[in-house]
């Protein structure tokens, strides 16, 4: 199928883009980034926006930079650009690793990092990474810019804290000195995963000093597994701590089953991914010291 008719604008500044969102508020306006989620949905008429506001010409949105130790990714930075960036590899290796699991290279050439976070698919990799990494989303609306912590950003499936007249201009990833791992299970590599785990751990003096673990595919949003984090912190990195974290992390999970995997299967898969993710992050943290 093809998209039904809609109006289209390609403004050159963020304020013009916001003004267009306000002006066409009654026309179901939508921001267009890479289009790799939105255009397929429009082809199937599952989304029928009346007005598309394309960010491709907005100056300044396609930059990726380090501000002190914080990695700042602009709204039009393509997933494949971020994947190959030495700055991302250095400052946010968890994001770099997760990007390799997002769809296939031809989709990553168009799709943006920020667009995936704005889309907030509960099965997607990058929202889980943003949550584990305590990323901040910078949203600009008619009243100016505000920062939204990842913990407050994801509200439900495909639903975020963004207001209808706000544009996400950039996402900020703070540094995490430690080890990282992104592990997922997908039936076919490159397809959406059933479960994904983003893990970050830091070690000092023979014990875990900090842990951040998030999971995708186990609820309406990506979930931060604070119980798993608490089970790790203060313990020596080893099999006992990992098993305790896996048990604690999965204890409260109640995923909805679907045609890809039932609830019990998802929990089994989450346990395996969690174990591998924490093991991988610990191994890298040990290497780093």
């Amino acid at each position: 199928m093809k998209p039904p008719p809609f109006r289209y604008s390609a403004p050159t500044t963020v304020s013009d883009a916001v003004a267009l969102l306000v002006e066409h508020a009654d026309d179901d306006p939508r921001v267009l980034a890479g289009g790799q989620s939105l255009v397929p949905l429009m082809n199937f008429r599952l989304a029928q926006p009346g007005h598309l506001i394309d960010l491709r010409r907005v100056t300044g949105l396609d930059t990726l930079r380090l501000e002190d130790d914080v990695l700042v990714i602009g709204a039009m930075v393509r997933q494949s650009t971020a994947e190959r960036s030495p700055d991302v590899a250095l400052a946010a290796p968890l994001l770099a690793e997760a990007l390799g699991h997002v769809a296939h290279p031809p989709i990553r050439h168009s799709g943006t990092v920020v667009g995936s976070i704005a889309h907030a698919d509960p099965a997607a990799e990058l929202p889980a990474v943003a949550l584990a990494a305590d990323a901040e989303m910078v949203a600009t609306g008619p009243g100016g810019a505000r920062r939204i912590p990842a913990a407050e950003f994801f509200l439900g499936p495909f639903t975020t804290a963004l207001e209808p007249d706000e544009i996400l201009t950039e996402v900020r990833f703070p540094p995490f000195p430690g080890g990282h791992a992104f592990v997922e299970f997908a039936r076919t590599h490159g397809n959406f995963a059933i479960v994904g785990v983003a893990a970050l751990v830091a070690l000092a003096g023979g014990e875990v000093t900090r842990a951040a673990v998030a999971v995708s595919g186990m609820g309406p949003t990506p979930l931060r597994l604070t119980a798993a984090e608490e089970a790790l912190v203060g313990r020596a990195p080893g099999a006992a701590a990992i098993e305790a974290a896996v048990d604690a992390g999965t204890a409260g999970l109640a995923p909805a089953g679907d045609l890809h995997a039932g609830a019990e299967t998802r929990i089994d898969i989450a346990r395996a991914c969690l174990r591998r993710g924490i093991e991988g992050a610990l191994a890298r943290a040990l290497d780093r010291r």
Partner: protein
Amino acid sequence: MRDLHEITLTVNGREHTLAVEPRRLLVDVLREDLGLPGTHIGCEHGVCGTCTVLLDGASIRSCSTLAVQVDGRSVRTVESLASGPDLHPLQEEFWDKQGLQCGYCTPGMLMRAVEILEQEPDPTPEQVREEIASNLCRCTGYQYIVEAVLAAAPRLRGGQQWDPTAGTAATVPTEAKA
């Protein structure tokens, strides 16, 4: 509501200025407006890859790209590969190794293979298998496609003279430009 937008596209080395509705997909503009039906349409939601073209050298799904999104940019389609009757080394190897049966996936496979070999001129079989996983084929079982890409690699590395834009650009008289 016909809201026409003027866009400029360079396709296989030739520049076109077109007025398109924003809802037109790049694949349809290539096939219908520019008369280049080599690029196929399959799933229309980014999954199969038969609509793969190169945008400024990088593979994209032309079914999940609006034509207005690529205003001012350069597109290469499967029509750019052969030069008259002379097939591109990748096309010859697909033929030779039976890298196609029904041929539906082939235009996308070829364009993706062009990119794979530009990025890694001497790939291992594992690398080709991994990279070509972006494109689906329901006939060949992929093995012969992988073999064809591997067989084309040394020919392209060997500096065999081949101008990627020669297929169309060289044969189009300038007055035919849109």
